[in-house]
């Protein structure tokens, strides 16, 4: 009954400011000549065309909770205090994943040879886009449950954070059937293309 919902093209735009912030830009402190500002802006603009934001979400009811463990109705279980505290008010777990696609990775790699400054702007844009896609998925999901008087936990976490072991990446990868979006996972549980990410959050149903 609970199956992944795929979005093969997500319409998001990462803000220029957030991209620069990732690269250490401090408003009011960092000084950019108008020439460089234009230059970086042109990188930011041209890189947009290489992005192929995609994503997926999956809701799975929680069957059991202990102080350290979450067991889902599909049989998968996760031992993590961080996850348990995130899901303390939730009856279901929402897993989301997003990617900025392969084309941007090619473009980053190509530019690293003779225009590293461009490559880092592309790189940060791709990272930010993957993140913004996750926000989009949450917004989409929130919209679809708002009529049901339900909402999502304000925070999301990823495995690799604190005691939520990075090895769970593979379990989540399989649950979401990420291959459908062309995403792969290597022996060290790294997602390919690189600008891909998985996160989880909780669904809280309100009082009726």
């Amino acid at each position, binding site marked *: 009954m609970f199956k992944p919902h795929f979005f093969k093209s997500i*319409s998001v735009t990462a803000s220029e400011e957030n991209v620069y912030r990732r690269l*250490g830009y*401090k408003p009011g402190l960092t000084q950019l000549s108008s020439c*460089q500002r234009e230059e*970086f802006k042109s990188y930011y603009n041209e890189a947009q065309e290489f992005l192929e934001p995609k994503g997926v979400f999956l809701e799975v009811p929680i069957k059991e909770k202990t102080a350290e463990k979450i067991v889902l109705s599909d049989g998968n279980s996760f031992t993590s205090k961080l996850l348990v505290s995130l899901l303390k008010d939730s009856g279901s777990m929402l897993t989301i994943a997003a990617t900025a696609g392969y084309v941007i990775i090619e473009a980053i790699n190509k530019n690293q040879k003779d225009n*590293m400054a461009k490559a880092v702007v592309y790189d940060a844009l791709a990272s930010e886009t993957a993140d913004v896609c996750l926000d989009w998925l949450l917004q989409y999901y929130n919209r679809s449950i708002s009529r049901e008087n339900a909402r999502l936990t304000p925070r999301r976490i990823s495995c690799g954070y604190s005691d939520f072991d990075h090895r769970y990446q593979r379990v989540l990868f399989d649950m979401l059937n990420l291959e459908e979006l062309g995403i792969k996972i290597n022996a*060290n549980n790294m997602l390919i293309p690189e600008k891909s990410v998985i996160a989880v959050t909780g669904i809280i*149903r309100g009082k009726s």
Partner: protein
Amino acid sequence: MKKRIHNLINKGVVILDGATGTELQKKGLPQGACPEKWCLENPAVISTIHSEYARAGADIIYTCTFGANRPKLAQYGLSDVFRINKCLGALAKKSAGTKSLVAGGIGPTGEFVSPFGALGFEEAVDIFKEQIKGLIAGGVDLLVIETMMDIQEARAALLAIKESGNLFSMVSMTYEKHSRTLNGNDPVSSLITLQNLGADVVGCNCSTGPKEMIKVISLMRPYAKVPLLAKPNAGLPRFVNNSTVFNMGPKRFAEFGKKLVSAGAGLVGGCCGSGPEHIHCLRKTVAGSRPVKLRKRNFFALSCARDFFILDDKNTFAVVGEKINPSGKKKMQQELIEGNFSIVREYARKQASDGAKLLDVNVGCPGTDEKKLMLKAIGILSVSSNLPLVIDSSDPEVLEAALRFYPGRALINSISGEKKKVRKLLPLAKKYGAMFILLPLSGKKLPLRFAERKKNINNIYALAKKEGFDKSDIVVDVLAMAVSCHYFAAEEALKTIRWCAKVFKTATIIGLSNTSFGLPQRHLINRVFLTLARKTGLCLAIADPLDLKPCKDKFVVNFLLNKPGAGSKFIAKYSGFPAEGKISKVSQSSSQENLRRAILEGNKEGAAIFVKAAMVSGSQALRLMREVMVPALVEVGELFEKKRYFLPQLIASAEAMKSGVKVLQPFLKSREIEKDRKGIVLMATVEGDIHDIGKNIVSLMLKNHGFQIIDLGKDVSTVKIIQAIKRHTPDIVALSALMTTTMVNMGEVVEEANKEGLRCGFMVGGAVVTEAYAASIGASYAKDGVHAVEIAKKLQKK
């Protein structure tokens, strides 16, 4: 019935009902229950809600079938789609009384439809047809598709209505605060797509409060040929004490209703959080007001999912990108045969950035299934490009499939007077609301002269008119032929353009490059001909946008406007290195200052130029390096430390340094190079890790400071690193890792090297690496490229 509804709308503002979901919750719908099922089990409750809305003055009441489609019902283990819709439709009819009409409500399936999501387009159409069948059997008066976030899903539902009978249809999308749906569809593109596909009313509901919706209605109004609908929430939703609340009271809500009407809405009602009281107030407030007049005349408009193109007084000309066409392109043909679309994607990208406003798509290629390829191309382009498409095929079957699937209003290329085809294609174009290029041919013979073309245009148009088209739906191809074959070809084309623009009053299009076929200087001819044609009134040109690009060379413009740094860039671009004679006029100190500034500003071309200039004006190479260039780079590092510079600036400066050093190198004596040379650094991102941009930045910085880099790349095994240490005997081994899981491999490398008795310094870094971890494995740590240089220098000394 359709007529009755049109009359109702023409008489004055139509009032729609308010929310059903939030009302049901108030009246006891349990959390997590299926609303449709619960309503069937508690018919009195939903019946009361319907009659309350009717009494409050709603002209149209929506059935409680928002989630009564197969995939949504399946979430509750239900499958009797027909019966549920029929019963709820009938129940609404019974409760609405005689005054109010009942609209069968159709909501989203919860999946985006192909090409934006996983649900197949025909599958979606079938899902909606199944629901519609039930609603019709229940006796609803009209149908409403609501709360759509994906234009393709809205199209599928609308087609399902059209293919289920002659029912009045309303479609409303849900726009977020930034006036786009979550799928990125904007109100005007959606309006163009839906009103041409046959929606009788288009509008918006849910998501935002009435205030935000005024903007959406105002955006649509100038382009609306059909009445507009607005059904906002009672304010923005907020979650308070574990419960969603909408806190706009009926009076304020109704005030906004009035503003929505002034903005252009002809039908108003409420969505989440609004109740009968809101509708009652709304009725009272807008009673008797007349909706604003809508645009009566048709107009030239094309759309895709996330953008649109309109030809009007402000926008009189556009280029149609012609490159997505395999004829004469071997590589593209090969790719298409293999089902590979990377060239298609690349051409779309390139043509858009060169200024095309529409993309012609032709994938006809011998030995392939054109229909399949066309659908795939449309899917890919709809997702990756924001330009409306011109669908180019001579096969009616391909065209039909393409029009059905294309998530916008397309332009067909083309329909000629060929009897069999024109009869097939005109109804198709009409059904899918497409525009078409009228090709003035009647048989096999080419009409060489204007008079014949005029006759053909009139004949084909007469047929189109019968089908319901008008002149705004058509673009006439004026038939550009090679001047090398017919010396009068250009003249006849111009005559055709003039007549279409002045007398017949249709838009025109030309396949530009045909004119210059077989002649030298083709680009020049194309450009001149286009200038003439545009002056005569040409609207569209199928062309390579590069051929037409007006010259606005940014180097020259910036140089003339005296922008900072533009001078050196201009020289670098156009004259290579400055002429010696000129340079002698420049003093040594000013060229050194220019060089320093070029490095500080990250100006690669400038750095190269000014190194050369400084050398010509008598600088000594080693001193230039030590006293100007290295200090400039150190200054950049300091600015970066103080956060005055951010990463791209640091890197741009490093690259400027690199380009300067390259020019300086031949002037440095090998003895001097040797003296300044630092050690060898072996770099690698450790096994399992694929992130290497951080390592590459560090490598660039080290190189600039005289280190010799051997880069092993990413995901490098410990064994390989050890082998490389043995082979190159580096002074320093620098390792990078992004994750704690891969970071442990750094420890392994150090341990193995120690075991083998290899003597070298170790430096590590990357997102999760810390000073403490580095110390624990016996390595030095650097947080970024600037520090890495410091640490490397220290390690070298040891």
